[in-house]
């Protein structure tokens, strides 16, 4: 059905499309492992996408853009922390609010700043993350099989892609190899245990939520300044929710998250490239491909393919005094 080169191409775009999912998924992982559910990944990404594009467009410096994107995402993360940690509100409702806030504010500000119907001007070079050519990529291009894999698939992505993939081992190491990770996991399972062990629940949870904000910020900046060249309204297009789905799919584990995001990225890549897929006599409509990540997540949630057990204290504010 697919020749090798097409396969490489599809995998190549899988990598590109999986990157924002992966960053957002890891973001959610930090937050939810600490017991703070976050359905506001989408909103944080969107906000970051806008501010990174806006600043990159005005300054012409993509790094400043990245910084601005991350900062804006951190602000929303702080808001989520305020609502769900400090004021012990409902984390789901807070997430819903943040998604709406981002959807509205980005267009509002974009319109105010650029008067282009809620988008930023297109980014020109300097305002975007350019692809990086890995060493010898051009030299080995001709080598059969491995050549294209290296030069097409592995090489030629923007720095944020590599960053996202490096974030996986980093996350695994932080979570399971460090004191911070131990405490973070503990606070998601039983905050009272952490509290009575003399560690600040609030501090840990804020730290987790802020890491979540940081990663969402990078994800959003990637969307607007690497994958695309500028911000358009609602450009996250549900990626935050797919990332959430991937997180559940991965059962809150970093390496599994990589797998889940690559899978969902592949689904997107295939859906992008082919309208309807013909498998013999069956035609798989593109809408089915679009919905597949969500369907898979529901299947996982239903426990038909291994039960996904969320962190025990997840979603519950830590209330000592009624």
């Amino acid at each position, binding site marked *: 059905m697919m020749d090798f080169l097409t396969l490489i191409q599809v995998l190549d775009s899988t990598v590109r499309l999986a990157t924002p999912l992966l960053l957002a998924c890891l973001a959610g992982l930090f937050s939810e492992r600490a017991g703070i559910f976050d359905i506001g990944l989408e909103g944080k990404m969107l906000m970051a996408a806008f501010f990174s594009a806006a600043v990159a467009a005005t300054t012409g410096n993509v790094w400043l853009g990245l910084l601005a994107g991350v900062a804006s995402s951190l602000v929303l993360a702080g808001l989520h922390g305020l609502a769900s940690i400090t004021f012990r509100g409902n984390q789901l409702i807070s997430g819903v609010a943040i998604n709406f806030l981002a959807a509205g504010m980005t267009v509002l500000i974009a319109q105010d700043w650029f008067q282009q119907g809620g988008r930023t001007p297109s980014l020109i070079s300097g305002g975007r993350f350019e692809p990086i050519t890995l060493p010898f990529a051009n030299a080995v291009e001709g080598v059969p099989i491995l050549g294209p894999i290296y030069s097409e698939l592995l090489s030629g992505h923007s720095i944020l892609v590599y960053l996202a993939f490096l974030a996986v081992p980093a996350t695994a190491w932080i979570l*399971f*190899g*460090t*004191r*911070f*990770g*131990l*405490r973070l*996991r*503990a606070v998601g*399972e*039983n905050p*009272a*245990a*952490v*509290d*009575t*062990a*003399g*560690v*600040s629940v609030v501090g840990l949870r804020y730290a987790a939520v802020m890491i979540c904000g940081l990663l969402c910020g990078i994800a959003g900046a990637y969307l607007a300044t690497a994958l695309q060249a500028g911000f358009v309204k609602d450009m996250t297009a549900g990626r935050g929710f797919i990332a959430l789905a991937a997180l559940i799919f991965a059962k809150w584990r970093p390496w599994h998250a990589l797998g889940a995001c690559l899978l969902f990225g592949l689904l997107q890549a295939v859906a992008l490239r082919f309208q309807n897929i013909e498998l013999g006599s069956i035609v798989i409509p593109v809408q089915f491909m679009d919905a597949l990540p969500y369907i898979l997540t529901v299947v996982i949630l239903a426990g038909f393919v291994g039960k996904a057990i969320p962190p*025990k204290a997840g979603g519950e504010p830590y209330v*000592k*005094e*009624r």
Partner: protein
Amino acid sequence: MTAPAIELKGISKAFGPVQANKDISIRVSPGTIHGIIGENGAGKSTLMSILYGFYKADKGEIWIHGKRTEIPDSQAAIAAGIGMVFQHFKLVENFTVLENIILGAEDGGLLKPSLSKARKTLQELAREYELNVDPDARIDEIGVGMQQRVEILKALYRQADILILDEPTGVLTPSEADQLFRILDRLRAEGKTIILITHKLREIMEYTDTVSVMRRGQMTATVKTAETNPEHLAELMVGRKVLLRVDKVPAAPGKPILEIENLNVVDEAGVARVKNLNLTVRAGEIVGIAGVAGNGQSELLEVLGGMREGQGTIRLNGNPLPLSGKGSDARARRASHVAHVPEDRQREGLIMDFHAWENVAFGYHHASEYQSGLLMNNAALRADTEAKMEKFDVRPPDPWLAAKNFSGGNQQKIVVAREIERNPDLLLIGQPTRGVDIGAIEFIHKQIVELRDQGKAVLLVSVELEEILSLSDRVAVMFDGMIMGERPADQTDEKELGLLMAGVAGEAA
């Protein structure tokens, strides 16, 4: 005289409208075991949690070894050498023992070195105090007794020299409890200071040096254990002379009402909770089930009450009742005249946010007298509530008050009134007087006995041996899901039951 290891001065703490601690002062000498007793809700746990920095006091001072110490959080308490084993353990269930122990007391940012160091220290502690635990076992895989050891080890690992234990024996068998006290003795011998909260006067009398009594948020007395006796302590606890026996005529048991044969219950986690249990309750008798909490009594009540499924046979008035699937739920049980006063009134017996009148229909909301057409007849319900409140002396007698706004005793009266007034053939009643004051206890006991005297069957579950002994006609002891033995209530005593509760078979006793 050396400075007290702990001195609390004028501690007050309110939770919203509830004044849990009122101006409490207490001194604890170093190298002693200091007991604290008091009724449920007296404020014992609150006071200790304040000392451990878990709650912040509204007012008052804490002095440790003669130094004024601010304890804004548990970290400060740990730094001051305080360790605490909470009534409800504070362990991360899916972590290993080792991980739980180092949590918050790691050395450096990396886990590996901390873990290997802790492993060594743990071995030393285990040897020193006979506190053996498998450092690599996961908490949710070990029993409560083991979990308690982990909690103690946590404190020792942090080099606590003041150790607070909040009702440590409530979940232990007598032999586990004995072992715990041996450890506490050794710690005391090393000069450590121990505060022990317990409801059991025997433990106070046997193991403590001094004892403080709390009542309704206040400290009513602190006395040397050697200079007091159980009756006196009990009186201090409840504020008046305690009547330990219930007035009742001897039972006249009739035909069997409830027959249980080979009952088995497996819980959600797949653990067998009730094993091949056989028991009969006759008309006109009260059968008491004694046992340490967690030995299957709750599950037994729940199965009988239709709250969970089981296998085996139960018959009511000779008719078998389904134990699973259709017709095995609480609604069906009520339809066959089984009333149930649950162990936890706030979690199960009442909807705390519902008005009293709504709670009076709870479980009986299908009853025809509460309906008018498709809708519920709320007026009838309220009238019924007023009648019941009057009869059971519920205070205040206001049907519109939410259940949460009644005191514990009055909440219990609402539940008991609802269940007993249905005139059931069988009354299941769990912990009828937990957290209820002495006046209400007498009233509730009287109602239960009256029901018996009308020829109804009563199955009573209580962790209070005294209550079991004074109220039941026959006592069955449960251990590990099985009935260890049955005794007529007037032919046994606490000692014998205690052995049965520890799993020592009846014949041997």
